[in-house]
């Protein structure tokens, strides 16, 4: 127990040394380079910019904007992805038929859609949300179709021989069986969406963390850009650790239980 704590402690200390060395290198690099805080701000400059943005309330407002867009887009994308998966995944025949089309659209990355969305919807929230929905829905659809094509027919036959109706088979066998695919797709999409949001805010918004990052540099306030980058990094870590990981755990665990329950029945 004690030894375990020592090992954990050592790990934390070494990790802190690593981060400390990074900041030291940054400090030394920026003060020795002599190119000025516009080209290479010092850690102190960034900290001051952070405090200033916080006091003026800009940072909080931008953070809320970004979070609102992100969760709205990801939620809608999940919904659209599930509905599309349900329609195209009704059976293997349709799934096979649509797979190449879905692969093709999946291969058109989100940034390539941004210009046409701007033409269609103008600069603003519609473009951003559409982009996020697209970027979340397609990985879900793609992974679900892959799951349907590879779905073991024995599961379905077993359920049929137990007297399951079509609806019962869908809700008891197919959906739980596809859950891992849906979750994988969602995880991928949620990651893409975060990156997509930054780009979308850079091009089509006048607020948000992505906007802060690009606007700072455009106005020679490089320290603000770095504040934006760090806030973005922390935000992603928080989303990943407290939101996506637990979600994945809860559902995959549940899936494990479903399978073992079925095993007992047959």
């Amino acid at each position, binding site marked *: 127990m*004690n*030894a*375990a704590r*020592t*090992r954990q402690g050592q790990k934390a200390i070494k990790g802190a040394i690593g981060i400390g060395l990074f900041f030291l290198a940054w400090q030394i690099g920026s003060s020795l380079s002599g190119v000025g805080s516009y080209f290479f701000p010092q850690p102190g400059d960034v900290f001051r910019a952070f405090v200033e943005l916080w006091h003026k309330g800009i940072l909080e407002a931008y953070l809320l904007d970004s979070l609102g867009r992100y969760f709205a887009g990801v939620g809608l994308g999940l919904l659209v992805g599930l509905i599309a998966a349900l329609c195209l995944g009704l059976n293997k025949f349709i799934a096979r038929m649509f797979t190449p089309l879905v692969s093709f659209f999946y291969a058109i990355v989100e940034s390539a859609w941004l210009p046409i969305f701007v033409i269609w919807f103008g600069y603003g929230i519609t473009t951003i949300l559409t982009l996020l929905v697209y970027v979340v829905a397609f990985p879900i659809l793609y992974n679900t179709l892959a799951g349907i094509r590879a779905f073991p027919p024995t599961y379905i036959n077993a359920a049929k021989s137990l007297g399951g109706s079509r609806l019962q088979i869908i809700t008891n066998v197919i959906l739980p069986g596809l859950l891992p695919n849906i979750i994988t797709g969602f995880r991928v999409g949620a990651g893409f969406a975060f990156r997509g949001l930054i780009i979308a805010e850079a091009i089509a918004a006048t607020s948000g963390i992505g906007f802060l990052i690009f606007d700072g540099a455009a106005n020679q306030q490089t320290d603000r850009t770095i504040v934006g980058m760090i806030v973005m990094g922390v935000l992603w870590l928080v989303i990943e650790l407290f939101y996506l990981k637990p979600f994945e755990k809860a559902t995959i665990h549940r899936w494990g239980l479903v399978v073992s329950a079925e095993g007992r029945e047959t």
Partner: protein
Amino acid sequence: MSDGMPKIKVRDLKVSYVHAATGQRHLALDNMTLDIREGEFLVVVGPSGCGKSTLLSTIAGFISPQSGVLEMNERPIAGPGSDRGVVFQDYALLPWKTVVDNVALGLKFKGVSKTERTKTAKEFLALAGLAEAAEKYPHELSGGMRQRAAVARTLANAPEVILMDEPFAAVDAQTRMTLQEELVRIWGQSKSTVFFVTHSVEEAIFLGDRVVVLQEGPGPVKAELSVDIDRSLRVWPDLNQNGRFQQLREEITALVRKTTVAA
């Protein structure tokens, strides 16, 4: 056999594992004393978990002992070396090399030229009955063939001592007997020293000049027996009818079982 000096000398050896996350120590070997004589085929038997693999890994130099003496040719063993060849239960053939390249690997490390090492490797493959499989990849072979290749790889490197950790445990019974017979035949030609670990009493008697029984849990060896059955009589399945074999089997089985019950 030789001038009395053991090939490998183990005195009061103590080995423990340290758990990576918790830092706790787990004692696996204690008070272990043993001689491996030049040119002998020594077999170690004992129930699973008694420390056979730990002893072998320590002699191989993969694990360093906590205390005690561990010497080869009167020099302390400090780490792995090509003087001690190891045959693993899971073969440990490199999947990305063909069978012949696997067998030639030790020679490659020594800097032997490609043509020469391939020639040597092919000789040993022929000896192991694998001449046909030289250009295949390990995953294309059966379990028995993989183990033959692994033995050939070790022999091709001409180690002074061969350490084998339950090499035939994963193959089917029929193949296993064939492999045992082939091992004895090949060993008869090379006359190197063999340290062989198994939990099968029959296998121990079939193969060994001497059999060492380990006890459950860390501690000194439980018993040492000489297998006084002429090698010409050791043929499957006739050996099963041999009276001395049956006697030894009963004796060793009792020793192994008693230690298991005691724990």
